[in-house]
């Protein structure tokens, strides 16, 4: 790599590819070749840089110049100015959102799982190898390391599952290793069901080999010879890169028969999901790999004893695996020195919603929510007020402003009524209605409940109906009590965690934003103007010139003239009778003077 005087890194993660970064890549190759610079300048396709909202992103080394929101048309100028004349293209140095600040975005991060994302070309195994890739695997075989010893190192590192539950990874491997069976399986959960999260996708797209290396190590530790990566069908780029990476690893002898002449065999296959959230749950995922409906099955028996095809199986999340090679290379002690007492290492979050720096970030455990939202995330756009952060997706909860100083780790997040989840983190501002958000998640769980157990199938539906009543203005205070009652039955009675946690979004919003619920049922008001049935149209009398257009288009005769003449106006203003208004919005569309508002 050192023969090149400059490297142009083009992000080809999903966000940037959606904005044509693959064409940007092609154009770079084209213009670099046109200038005859192909021996001096290397154009590299990489995974996600993290700051997705400002994509497509192009980074030029050795300076490390970052260009934001590039278009295919910008490429010629970058080549001519930056690469030929050595002058930066100032116009692309600024982010599209003036409030976003990339320096702050990166300064508090620490990258372990994302170490290679945006740094290497995911299509080239050589680049992974050049960044210590397959070193951990190679060392295991060259030193003939005992599997039990590796497992105890993982245990010592304190690594806990990043898929949501936070179960200690070393312990899980230990269980499966101790069960006697000739056939065992290693599975990777890349179903990433939490809507609004894209951590696992970015790792698979940006650094697929790390998953292959880690799963092979896991296979060696528990005595498995076959692995499956279960990827959701919505991730075609991830699937493509992962399968190319698996082929390369096989060609290089890192997986397959007799790896490093050790006599150990291990191979990997990809299985595609088909759009069922519950298939992220471990037992459902295994049924799905078996080709069946993804219904969860009761535990015990745990997968470590009886999992995929009835054989002992371990399942870990993508991000969990991405930590394994680093732990083995740098040592358990080093890893355990990062983070808090009970949550070691880092966590990747997909920060989204109403925040300036939308993107992918990785922080040491113990970082506060405030640091993420306001320092890394750069605060709330358009000068709006922060309301809450949602973590844990449909199983999680909302963290209000009063708890912004909560230090992120598994136990703290549960204590404030949310959970770590897989890493989705959605910021909400004053315009987000918390009842509507609870309803949004419930609609999701109603859709996704597999229907096998009654508490979940019926309970989520009943709760959704109650929330619909509350948001359409027919709810009562008794409904709030009913929500809490159903929630308890769900928690205690459901077969899997989908149902057990389905009420969390409601319970946490009711706990922290009860006043909004009460406002919906008692005052029939939605302060954010989100719940359409509760909206009321009204006329700002001082803006009304009295033309009467609104009154003419009103199908319900709800608009009449008053006696009030606004200062500077000639005719008396109109007003809307809320009891007659049918909320069609025709008046507001007609008024040319912006005198009609919806609140």
């Amino acid at each position, binding site marked *: 790599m050192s023969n090149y005087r400059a490297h142009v890194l083009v992000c080809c993660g999903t966000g940037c590819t*959606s*904005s044509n970064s693959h064409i940007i890549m092609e154009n770079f190759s084209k213009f670099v070749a046109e200038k005859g610079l192909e021996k001096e300048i290397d154009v590299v396709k990489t995974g996600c840089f993290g700051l*997705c909202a400002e994509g497509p992103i192009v980074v030029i080394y050795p300076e490390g110049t970052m260009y934001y929101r590039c278009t295919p048309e910008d490429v010629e100028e970058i080549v001519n100015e930056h690469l030929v004349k050595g002058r930066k293209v100032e116009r692309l140095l600024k982010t599209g959102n003036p409030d976003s600040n990339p320096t702050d975005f990166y300064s508090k991060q620490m990258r372990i799982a994302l170490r290679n994302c945006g740094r290497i070309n995911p299509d080239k195994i050589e680049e992974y190898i050049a960044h210590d890739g397959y070193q951990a695997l190679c060392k295991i075989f060259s030193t003939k390391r005992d599997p039990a010893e590796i497992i105890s190192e993982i245990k010592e590192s304190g690594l806990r599952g990043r898929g949501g539950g936070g179960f200690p990874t070393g312990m899980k491997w230990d269980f499966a290793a101790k069960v006697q069976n000739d056939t065992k399986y290693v599975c990777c959960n890349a179903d990433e069901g939490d809507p609004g999260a894209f951590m696992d996708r970015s790792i698979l797209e940006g650094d697929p080999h790390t998953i292959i290396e880690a799963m092979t190590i896991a296979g060696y530790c528990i005595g498995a010879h076959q692995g499956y990566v279960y990827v959701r069908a919505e991730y075609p780029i991830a699937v493509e890169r992962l399968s190319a990476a698996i082929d390369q690893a096989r060609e290089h002898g890192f997986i397959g028969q007799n790896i490093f002449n050790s006599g150990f065999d291990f191979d990997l296959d990809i299985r595609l999901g*088909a759009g069922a*959230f519950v298939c992220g749950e471990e037992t459902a995922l295994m049924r799905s790999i078996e080709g069946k409906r993804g219904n969860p099955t009761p535990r015990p028996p745990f997968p470590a004893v009886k999992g995929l095809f009835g054989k002992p199986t371990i399942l870990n999340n993508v991000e969990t695996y991405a930590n394994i090679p680093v732990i083995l290379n740098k040592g358990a002690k080093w890893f355990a020195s990062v983070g808090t007492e009970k949550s070691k290492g880092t966590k990747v979050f997909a920060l989204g919603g109403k925040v300036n720096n939308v993107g992918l970030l990785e922080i040491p455990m113990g970082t506060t929510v405030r640091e993420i939202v306001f320092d890394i995330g750069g605060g709330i756009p358009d000068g709006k007020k922060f309301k809450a952060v949602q973590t844990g997706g449909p199983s999680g909860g909302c963290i209000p402003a009063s708890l912004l100083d909560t230090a992120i780790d598994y136990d703290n997040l549960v204590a404030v009524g949310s959970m770590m989840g897989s890493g989705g983190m959605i910021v909400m501002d004053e315009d987000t209605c918390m009842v509507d958000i609870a309803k949004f998640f419930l609609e999701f769980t109603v859709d996704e409940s597999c229907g096998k157990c009654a508490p979940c199938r019926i309970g989520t539906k009943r709760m959704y109906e109650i929330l619909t009543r509350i948001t359409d203005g027919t709810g009562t205070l008794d409904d709030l009590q009913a929500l809490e009652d159903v929630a308890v039955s769900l928690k205690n009675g459901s077969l899997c965690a989908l149902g057990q946690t389905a009420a969390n979004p409601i319970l946490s919003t009711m706990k922290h934003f009860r006043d909004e619920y009460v406002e919906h049922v008692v005052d029939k008001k939605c302060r954010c103007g989100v719940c359409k049935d509760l909206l009321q149209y009204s006329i700002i009398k001082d803006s009304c010139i009295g033309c009467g257009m609104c009154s003419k288009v009103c199908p319900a005769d709800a608009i009449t003239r008053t006696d009030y003449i606004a200062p500077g106006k000639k005719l008396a203003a109109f007003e809307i009778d809320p009891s007659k208004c049918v909320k069609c919005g025709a008046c507001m569309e007609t008024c040319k003077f912006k005198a009609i508002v919806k609140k």
Partner: protein
Amino acid sequence: MSIIKLTPEEQATKLEAVLSKYKGQGQKALMSTLQQAQEIYGYLPLPVQRKVADALDVSVANVYGVISFYSFFSLKPKGEYAFNVCLGTACYVKGSQALLDKIEESLGIKSGDVTEDTKFSISSCRCVGACGLAPVLLVNDDVYGRLTPDEIPAIIAKYKEEANV
């Protein structure tokens, strides 16, 4: 970009190839077979389900059970231009519901339906992983990000022109 239309004969030959690859493998090959069959036909009509069941030696009821469980499998054909609005949390918070409402209004059909001339269909999904661009709309493989409802009519007009309607 529109979906490349295969002739019925081409579809049948391609399906045969897929079925012979998985023949006799039973349940464990069912998902992969269905995924590839749907790629060929765009959806999974009953005759295709029957053929899959025969080839894998599982019951048609079983095949139907799997199809109806997973939202990715479709029993109805999609439009030539499939509008798919992301209703994942990141997009929802940024107003993707309003996008969906506007598209329904402009095309005159509801989410889940296809226009009579089978040119357009609307559906929603939960996160395509491009949350940085929220709110996101997919039209077949084209991705539109950071959209507002005002931009919808122009997008629809563009595809209508392409589709000659």
